[in-house]
């Protein structure tokens, strides 16, 4: 079964957006998540990520990333509670652990851990949407002028790794189908065949690249790619999110101190920022939905 975060062309407007605009849009949310520790702002960014994910048609990817984030979050909270020895609200005192020695667990350390987990969850969600909705080939094409060899390597890897996985599944299935009387095939034997097959394929790929003239430098551009009419919308929304988040941060909005006691800025400017981020994230979709529904309505009228 295809992974929930694997790329597949999406039918909506976001599916037609260029890789650069899509990366700017989604990347802006990740940047904002790293800039702020305030739980109100992080919660708003989580909401913005969910809104963006659903409107992009990446609900499954979001669900998968949320599951990973929840598991990772439990570890982050537990580790931070043990590792951070700051915070005035001591909940457990003098906990003796092997190697680590005597530790305290404070409420502030738990809160800080929770916020770190939330931030990781937001970033995971953003990357899951990006992975599910943005064509990796287009990303590689963007990178080609900057790092031709790396882009080529990454392009090959993105193709060859799934092929190797499929080979592995086929070999395993073939081994299982030999019948109950046949000797069991160990993992090492399968891996040996897999590596041999991969090397053969690598030689074929290298020969194909050679024949196509990849050794003579980057292929000339066949012509400038036209940007989708939606690109500017998403790029503008991404830039707006970064500008709003950065300027608010510089102005001192959304302060948060975990230690020694938790201090949270919940004043109007912070609440306004928390409201603005999901709205900005949803904005580029809003007009498109209207356009889509109006065109459908006109089609219906015509029909």
């Amino acid at each position, binding site marked *: 079964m295809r992974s929930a975060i694997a790329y597949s062309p999406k039918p909506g407007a976001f599916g037609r957006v260029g890789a650069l605009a899509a990366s700017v849009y989604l990347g802006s949310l990740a940047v904002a998540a790293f800039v702020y520790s305030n739980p109100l702002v992080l919660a708003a960014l989580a909401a913005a990520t969910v809104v963006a994910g659903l409107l992009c048609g990446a609900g499954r990817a979001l669900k998968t990333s949320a599951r990973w984030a929840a598991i990772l979050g439990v570890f982050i909270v537990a580790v931070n509670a043990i590792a951070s020895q700051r915070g005035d609200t001591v909940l457990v005192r003098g*906990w003796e652990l092997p190697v680590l020695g005597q530790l305290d667990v404070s409420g502030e350390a738990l809160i800080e851990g929770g916020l770190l987990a939330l931030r990781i969850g937001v970033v995971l969600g953003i990357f899951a949407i990006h992975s599910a909705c943005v064509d990796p080939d287009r990303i590689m094409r963007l990178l080609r002028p900057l790092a031709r060899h790396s882009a080529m390597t990454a392009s090959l890897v993105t193709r060859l790794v799934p092929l190797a996985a499929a080979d592995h599944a086929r070999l395993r299935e073939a081994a299982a189908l030999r019948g109950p009387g046949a000797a069991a095939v160990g993992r090492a034997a399968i891996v040996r065949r897999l590596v041999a097959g991969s090397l053969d394929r690598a030689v074929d790929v290298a020969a194909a690249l050679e024949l196509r003239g990849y050794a003579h430098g980057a292929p000339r551009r066949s012509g400038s790619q036209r940007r989708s009419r939606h690109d500017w919308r998403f790029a503008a929304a991404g830039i707006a999110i970064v500008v709003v988040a950065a300027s608010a941060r510089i102005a001192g909005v959304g302060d948060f101190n975990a230690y020694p006691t938790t201090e949270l800025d919940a004043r109007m400017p912070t609440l306004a920022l928390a409201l603005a981020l999901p709205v900005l994230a949803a904005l580029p979709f809003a007009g498109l939905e209207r356009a889509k529904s109006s065109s459908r309505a006109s089609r219906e009228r015509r029909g």
Partner: protein
Amino acid sequence: MSRRRIRGLAAAGAFALAVVTSGCGLGEGESSQGAATLTITRDYGAQRLAEATEAEPTDSDTVIRMLDREVEIETRYSGGFVQSIDGIEGEIDAGRSFDWFFFFNGIESSTGAAEVEVRGGDRVWWDYRDWTDALRTPAVVGSWPEPFLQASTESDPIEVRVECFGRRDPCERVRDRLADEAVKASVETPHDAGGRSLRLLVGPWAQLRSDPLAGSLDQGPEVSGVFARFAQRQGGGWSLELLDEHASVARQHLGGAGLVAAMRDGEQPPTWLVTGVDAAGVDEAVAMLDADYLSDRYAVAAHAGGETAVPVGALR
């Protein structure tokens, strides 16, 4: 009840058992009597930045928590290492290294600030300094009457011994100064008593240098942690050389100069030197045993012109 639920309950039970059997408690714990003091300085105590008092610290109070309440800090290594206090950050500037260090009751801590518990009466001193020429200054005089007071009031008190190298009179005055601070000490002739004891070596440098620990003063601050040394003069007698933070001789004092400094041999309790180039210098040093002269100082030199904090001119 499902198997998963049983597993969850078993894990919770095991956790609770681990918590109980490991001897830990819930909440901040009981308060101790007295007040703990926090001093923050820079450049070997030359500039005082902040001071605070914590009344009746609780069982869960540590050096890092006490510091965290008073100033803005940034930490590394899970709070064990303080990187910055109120924006003054550890750095390498023009090839010289600067960082925050703390002394707990006059002893440089070898463990992280998160691991040192604070009780009533403790003195915590944070100092931001250039440590290029002396990574360790194992003990300082700036928390007087610590480490003597806390050591003698512990449930398992450490013996305080005034070891007399020469005339007995200055030694008795040292004992009286300690008594004024509620520290009980005995005056003895130098001997290897074994065991743990806090020592004050009192006498002229010519005699006192026979003590192995005191003798390491000659090897400079890198080894002794003290930015002062005695030099033999041509034609006899001694001079007291005071060093700056680069371990270069900044001043030299001849007759009547004394020194109060603290040293430490490994993990043993500190040893204080109350000494001078001659008998008059020892008297000058004894007179320095007062918080007015010693506070926030690594070591103090006494001479005809008054007293000088050591290292000399460390203000950056």
